[in-house]
């Protein structure tokens, strides 16, 4: 689950996407700091073409919360290509 999110996260932390568990609290990842968090948020924004309010930034701390958020903002972009095309 959450493959696109894990891929982005893995780049920032410098690990393999598979090493990130589905129930990860991202702020608890090793070496995580506020700059990583901001970098992650900016990467999400670029990837899904969304804008996240400053207040919400600090609340997006787990993969399921982030996934819900991204889907609510940009449903077509976060779903696999096949379904978006109605196939």
């Amino acid at each position, binding site marked *: 689950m959450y493959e696109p999110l894990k891929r982005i996260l893995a*780049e920032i932390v410098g690990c393999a996407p598979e090493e990130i568990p589905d129930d990860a609290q991202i702020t608890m990842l090793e070496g995580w700091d506020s700059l990583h968090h901001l970098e992650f948020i900016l990467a999400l924004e670029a990837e899904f073409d969304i804008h996240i309010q400053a207040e919400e930034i600090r609340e997006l701390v787990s993969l399921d919360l982030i996934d819900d958020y991204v889907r609510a903002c940009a449903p077509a972009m976060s779903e696999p290509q096949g379904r978006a095309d109605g196939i």
Partner: protein
Amino acid sequence: MRAVEPLLEPLTPKALAERRRRGLALLERPPAAPAARVAVLSTFCVDLLAPLLAEALTRWDRPASEIAVGPFGQVAQQLLLSSSELYATDPDVLLLVLSVEDLLEPLFAPVGPGLPDAAAAALVDRRVEELCGWLGVALGRLPRTTCCVTLVGPCAAPVEQVLSPLAPERGLGAVLRLHEGVRGLAESGSRIVVIDWEWHVRAQGTAALHDPRLWYLARMRLNPRGLATLAELVACHLAAERGAAYKVAAVDLDGVLWGGVVGEAGVGGIELGEEGLGLAFQDFQRELLRLRELGVLLVACSKNNPQDVAAVFAEHPAMVLRREHFAAQRVNWQDKATNLGELARELNVGLDSFVFFDDSPVERAWVRQALPEVAVAELPADPVARPGMLRSCPYFRRIVLTDVDRGRAGAYAVEHQRRDLAASSASFGQFLASLDQQARIELVSDATLARAAQLCQRTNQFNLTTKRYSVAELEAMRGDGRTELYTLSVSDRFGDSGITGLAILRLGEDEAEIDTLLMSCRVLGRRLEDVLLAFLAERTQALGARFLVGQFEPTAKNAQVADLYLAHRFEPAGAGLFRLDLQQHRPTAPAEIHVRVVASV
């Protein structure tokens, strides 16, 4: 040679994410040498710059092995303390990112008495003086480092509610004075490159490059788009500093210099004039003419009947470009890749110095496929967009113009006359004598350093070792006490070619080694290499050494000099080295060339 994307193109979020991703991968696996170590110091947080800068530098052919972003707001400490992280990094490139709001903090403080004009001006002068002093210290300690300086901002005036530009509350006088002061840093040393941020980002608008969330949450004054823009500007300036610009603009004619097809519409039927679309084509010609004045060679490459094209040049009253503005041309029905290859041979310039401008996507695709080394410009389909595109396209950028750049186009016209003389001479010796060549050999000076570095960067064919020295590296060599750098200037009965050769001699115990020996393709085949070798031999003996050692480092392009040292009776000494015992043989300069050595050693 250089994968250039249009400078400051609008970056979509996807493109931005892609650049960042490529940059992260590059930082993860830095390229093998030669790669630059880069240190970044700033007055605000730019911690997210590294991947974007790594990506831009690689795309502009200057990969980084390391990008160390220092703690922000500690510019003075990092520059002044010899124990700082900056000096531990020992960078090849130092990037200094300053913001107006940070440097003039008392002026921009949201509450307080404000600053009267005189006090603001005094504050600015103090800041500029400090900066100048700090940079002096840093560049003194880092003798090979190039320093890029940029001043960002301000986003808004200290007080926006007062509208008069002269009102002291707006602080405009101080802001302009500060920008002027930072621009002036470029004059305080040849290794300081000032990036005029505010000017370059005008088209994007500063608002697009800032993000209040990032300021409040992380003290970042630039958003990722702003950082990507900064990275692009830094990479482009460093490329220009290396003199890595393209040399030739190869242009199609129909649909590019004028609208329509002259072979069908006739001279009177093409679109070219003082109004409407005709003016857009005319302005495109004006931009080409401007490039020519900047030292870019224009060549025409067109599928056309030569007589139709000749008629346009001779008869159309609205033509800006004349036949003599083109250094060479191919107007025929051959395919364009073949024509470009012929043009490159005729001008004695590599195809990787060519930028190709054609309105046909098919021709562009063909050239791109057949000649991957040629840069193919994405000419906008709409002619009105083309003058602006040509004006700001990144291919021909340089930091400053040298006299050689200014005279280049004229020099190529003269070369044609020289060739006619060669054709009419009975022997090579007679041709050489009738050229009446004057060779001048001089120690590299402050005034000629930029040209010397440009030759290192741009000379491919007659270049024995192809070492791409920068201004900073040459300057360091000049001062090391064991290296002598000489330029060769040539003039003949047709004119002055200026500085067209460089030799770097490194002194050892009993021998002197030729670290670099190169000549511009414009003066090849005139036995000037004999002049240089004779001089280097003489110099070696004057310094008390017995052997002159040369090196040949083969590249894809310098095969013509593979046997240079053997031909001058050097003995192979292994590992690409050649050695000449000056007690056995001393090379002499050809009697037909008048040599003047004005080096005061």
